[in-house]
């Protein structure tokens, strides 16, 4: 005779048996399994997680990054014409080659000299009418 037998109350047992607990919901299994995977993943060493880790990126950001990447790649791969070098052989030699690279048009003065400059002794201001200026 076990300790259970000594404590049993058959009449009450029969009545209590009428209440059956609900079955385990199907969703619980998936929920627990997901929690288990999360928990065991956290227990993994960091280097192991590097191989399976994922990052969620919003779609607009992802599209922007892809476009940026494509543009950068296109610019990097674009064929470029090499500039003429000083050692290029030709009839005029290096000097002619250097002149050929100079921009055309009037020469631009880049330096001024104040040597021999003297300020005027007396300043006289004259107001003139506008029509006179035109004449």
């Amino acid at each position, binding site marked *: 005779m076990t300790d259970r037998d000594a*404590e049993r109350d058959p009449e*009450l047992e029969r009545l*209590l048996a009428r209440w059956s607990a609900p079955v*385990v919901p199907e969703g*619980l299994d998936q929920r627990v399994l997901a929690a288990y*995977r999360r*928990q*065991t993943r956290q*227990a*993994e060493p960091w280097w192991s997680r590097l191989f399976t880790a994922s990052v969620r990126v919003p779609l607009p950001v992802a599209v922007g990054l892809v476009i940026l990447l494509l543009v950068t790649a296109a610019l990097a791969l674009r064929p470029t014409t090499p500039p003429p070098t000083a050692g290029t052989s030709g009839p005029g030699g290096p000097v002619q080659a250097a002149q050929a690279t100079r921009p055309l048009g009037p020469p631009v003065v880049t330096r001024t000299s104040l040597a021999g400059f003297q300020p005027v002794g007396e300043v006289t201001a004259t107001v003139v009418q506008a029509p006179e200026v035109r004449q």
Partner: protein
Amino acid sequence: MTDGAAEAELLLKAARGDEAAFLLLYERHRTPVFRFACRMLGEPQHAEDVTQECFMSVLRRPEAFRAERASLRTYLCAIARHLALKQLRKRGQETLTDDPPVDAAPGTRTAADDPLRSAIGGQEAEAVRQAVAELPPLQREAVVLFEYQEMSLLEIATVCEVDVGTVKSRLHRARERLRRRLLPFLAGGAQAPAAMGRETRS
């Protein structure tokens, strides 16, 4: 290798990430844990939370399970009990005393108060559910573990962290309350057996 040692081994494997080992343990013990939590809390949603947290917490410290002390089922029920009492405490329903006074308000009617109507309406299961739910938590857990989980007094004592004498005492008081609440449904109750028989057949 004993069953307990084998389960301890499975538990260690599961904690290390062996999903197959975890599924084996989970499928073996999910029903008793869920049903125990459900009967303690009365609501399946809360029982789901407790079941999930119960399995996760046992995996966090697998070495805490000692197969020589108790079976894994008993150990899981002990964790589920702690979690269930925590939920009841949050709701302000946990009672620290073993035998608080019956405080049903005068005029309050429960399903058990009107057995004929309950039986005809297919409500005797509801009457039992309500009577068990009205038990103080410490008595409720003793009844649930004994009557529904079919645990021995020693196992219940392990789960509840008390001695066997305390378990017997709680069980006795719980049954007294249940008998009072469900008197009309018991053999001595007028009309109840016939009504319940009809209900069972229907």
